[in-house]
């Protein structure tokens, strides 16, 4: 089994590893996957309350090299994006960027889910301040 150079690079030098204060109203936390399935991703975003721009992102992942790489890449991509822009990131973009083989596509799906879960959590926390529609708030429950 050979990994692409990009997967190896993210595995060896993961970007944005760590944790943000999950109690902060500016921070959204997404925790997806399950230990029994062999993949758990925690992705956090810190959103500027006036601009809705994601200023910081951190992740921690339990999973294979492709799962680590997918979540590392996801944090790189969401940083500097607005919430709406971050929601346009698709798992297929991650597959393409990392050259994931078919058996590893679920890693990219999980990373997309993690982004959406983190945004969903942030929106829920800020539901009164922002004009979040109920539909958007429901993304956290998306499976």
């Amino acid at each position, binding site marked *: 089994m050979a990994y692409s150079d990009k997967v190896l690079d993210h595995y060896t030098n993961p970007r944005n590893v760590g944790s943000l204060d999950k109690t902060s109203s500016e921070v959204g936390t997404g925790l997806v996957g399950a*230990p*029994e399935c*062999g*993949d758990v991703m925690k992705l956090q975003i810190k959103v500027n309350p006036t601009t809705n721009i994601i200023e910081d992102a951190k992740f921690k*992942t339990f999973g294979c090299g492709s*799962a680590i790489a997918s979540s590392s890449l996801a944090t790189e991509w969401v940083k500097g994006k607005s919430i709406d822009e971050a929601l346009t990131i698709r798992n297929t973009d991650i597959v393409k960027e990392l050259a994931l083989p078919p058996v590893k596509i*679920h890693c990219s799906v999980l990373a997309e*889910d993690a982004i959406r879960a983190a945004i969903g959590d942030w929106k829920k926390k800020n539901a009164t301040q922002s004009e979040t529609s109920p539909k958007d708030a429901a993304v956290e429950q998306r499976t």
Partner: protein
Amino acid sequence: MAELMSTNVTASKVDGDVKLPIYMDNHATTRTDPRVLQEMLPYFTENFGNAASRNHEFGWVAEQAVEQARERIARLIGATSKEIIFTSGATESDNLAIKGVAEMYKEKGNHIITQTTEHKAVLDSCKRMEKHGFRVTYLPVQKDGRIDLDDLKRALDDKTILVTIMAANNEIGVLQPIREIGALCHERGGLFHTDAVQAIGKVPFNVIQDNVDLASISAHKFYGPKGVGALYVRRKNPRVQLVAQIDGGGHERGMRSGTLNVTGIVGLGRACALAGEEMAEEATRLAALRDRLKDAIMGQLDEVYINGSMEHRLPGNMNISFAYVEGESLLMGINDVAVSSGSACTSATLEPSYVLKALGAGDDLAHSSIRFGIGRFNTEAEVDYVAKRVMETVNRLRELSPLYEMAKEGIDLKKVQWAAEPTH
């Protein structure tokens, strides 16, 4: 004319006393011992005859070599040479034993007993026999990986024609109590087959003392070549009969047709002879290396769990789960060391190891498991290097693991409501 391309494992780096990469996956296969290879070589070239050719010297020389190998195998396991049937390997031996016995004794009974951590060659042969109307009991294993003999006693009945239980497990190295299993089986008039692939050449194995009627053997698991194995088939007390599964020229007394793999058989014979001479000493050395690895890892890392009994275990085997770290990512981090993982990501089926699941440890620990298989050619310096790399990588991956972070915060991971699996 274009040359066929082949690639080699490149020993590119050296770290102190060790050459990299290090091979520590000796349950998957072993390096052919140079002494074995040396003995095989003339049978590719000047002594290339077909052992079934009765009318010329080429055939006689080949036949003589095959018979010498048969003697050597028999001597190692306490059998007689006429009780050894050559096959292409242990998968074929398991198939022949199970299907051959079932077909031969179907008038006597229709019940087969096995257990859940068998190799797939046994489990799938049993499943096939279920399709042909046989009843198969799959005994569970206890937490230490061994079956409960009381379960076996309860499962045996008048219709039981065969019990098939491995001598040593390929993932966790756990030794089953085969002597007791054989005795119980014989009390009820059934036959006892054991897949002895991982045990032979590693621990004492004697078909008389261990009450074995059929035993599967594979050369490449103990420093012989791939593609050759044998099935021991008892000829007295009781005399075991089989229905052949491969028809043809009637080789191997009609039990297994097909031109004999003379070079492979010569190699298997030499591997058995070497095991007979060196096994006791080698077992002591490998157990010491294994314990050195275990002590180094367990002394430095918390929350590591040994899978399977330490007491009843192959000397070179070590199977450990590193909590909060996924196995494939660990393998990736120690990429200059060849070992295996029970993680789903490393299996063709994307399911975590069924052997580890059978121990009741939970899927999460199966995903986190690494199998170390220490063998004849491993050194103390290699063990130290592997232990160091494992510790560094586990620590690094735990820093990356949300589960480790949650556990350190005092969250009970078993009580977390995990999000469902993605559906796309």
